[in-house]
């Protein structure tokens, strides 16, 4: 046996150190599954980058119509931001409770996450309706097309996240917190946190950027 082989399989080598580098045995399923989902999330973020680029390019093209500074309500943007941030927090606490097999506490945090996400979506849809009513719909100018596409795509992601959360809570209730369900919850939490990261870009570029 060569010394290199002895090094690799030596029981003194903490398997923690070897992860992700091929030594010490394969990584646990939780890590592998989360990595695959992470690749999907990065793909999603690259798609968002195209929408951000479109908005950055078109934000001045108002075609004589209203500009962002005239249209946007910063107070509701701030409330939306806080709703999404707090729902990210409760989502994280929910995953911790699920990992500790505390189903009741998980369900409370999942309900809070859902309510905060739904509040975010409600404010956003109300804002969209207000803009369309004012005649500032997506067909008014290039700026508004880009705005509705970027913010609307994020909103659709939040809506599908809420539907997925209901589906996962149903799984937790019917099947319990078994490992496969836990892994799905972990992936869902990655998705939800990633949506919050995209929102940081949205409120910086769309709502706060000086015109």
């Amino acid at each position: 046996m060569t010394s290199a082989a002895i090094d690799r399989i030596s029981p003194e080598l903490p398997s923690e150190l070897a992860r992700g580098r091929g030594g010490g045995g394969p990584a646990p399923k939780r890590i592998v599954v989360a990595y695959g989902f992470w690749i999907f999330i990065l793909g999603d973020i690259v798609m968002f980058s195209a929408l951000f680029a479109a908005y950055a390019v078109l934000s001045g093209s108002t075609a004589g119509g209203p500009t962002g500074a005239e249209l946007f309500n910063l107070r509701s943007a701030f409330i939306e931001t806080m709703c999404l941030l707090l729902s990210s927090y409760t989502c994280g606490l929910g995953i911790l409770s699920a990992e500790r097999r505390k189903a009741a506490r998980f369900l409370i945090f999942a309900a809070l996450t859902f309510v905060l996400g739904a509040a975010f979506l409600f404010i956003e849809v109300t804002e969209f309706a207000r803009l369309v009513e004012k005649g500032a719909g997506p067909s008014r100018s290039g700026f508004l097309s880009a705005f509705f596409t970027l913010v609307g795509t994020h909103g659709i992601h939040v809506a599908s996240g809420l539907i997925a959360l209901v589906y996962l809570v149903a799984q937790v209730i019917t099947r319990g917190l078994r490992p496969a369900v836990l892994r799905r919850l972990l992936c869902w939490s990655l998705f939800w946190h990633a949506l919050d990261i995209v929102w940081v870009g949205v409120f910086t570029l769309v709502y706060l950027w000086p015109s």
Partner: protein
Amino acid sequence: MTDSFEPVFDRTPGVEEHGPTVSYLSYSVGLGLAILATITSFVVSQTDLLWPPGIPVGLIVLAFAQIGVHLVFFLHLGSGPDSTNNILALAFGVLIVFLVISGSVWIISNLNSNMMPMPQ
């Protein structure tokens, strides 16, 4: 001798050998920092706290700081071996995002400044 090798070889991808590795504290610290960054962003954009021409740079710095807080405290990307592959993938994603956004802005602003003046 061979017995002591067993634990290393017996691990398979299906094994769930750990309990939770992160604490409630990590999320609370992350939430506090993220709220701080958010409020600072909103204040900076609405006041003259920063030198006005420097506001875009300030907003970009705050946004990157907040994204960093989210990655570390909410998504638990760290320097540990479990995160190595995720960070490499993230670095590639950041490269693509940077190329798409900055390239688009650069090309279109160049195009705009070379447009013929529109007849009024």
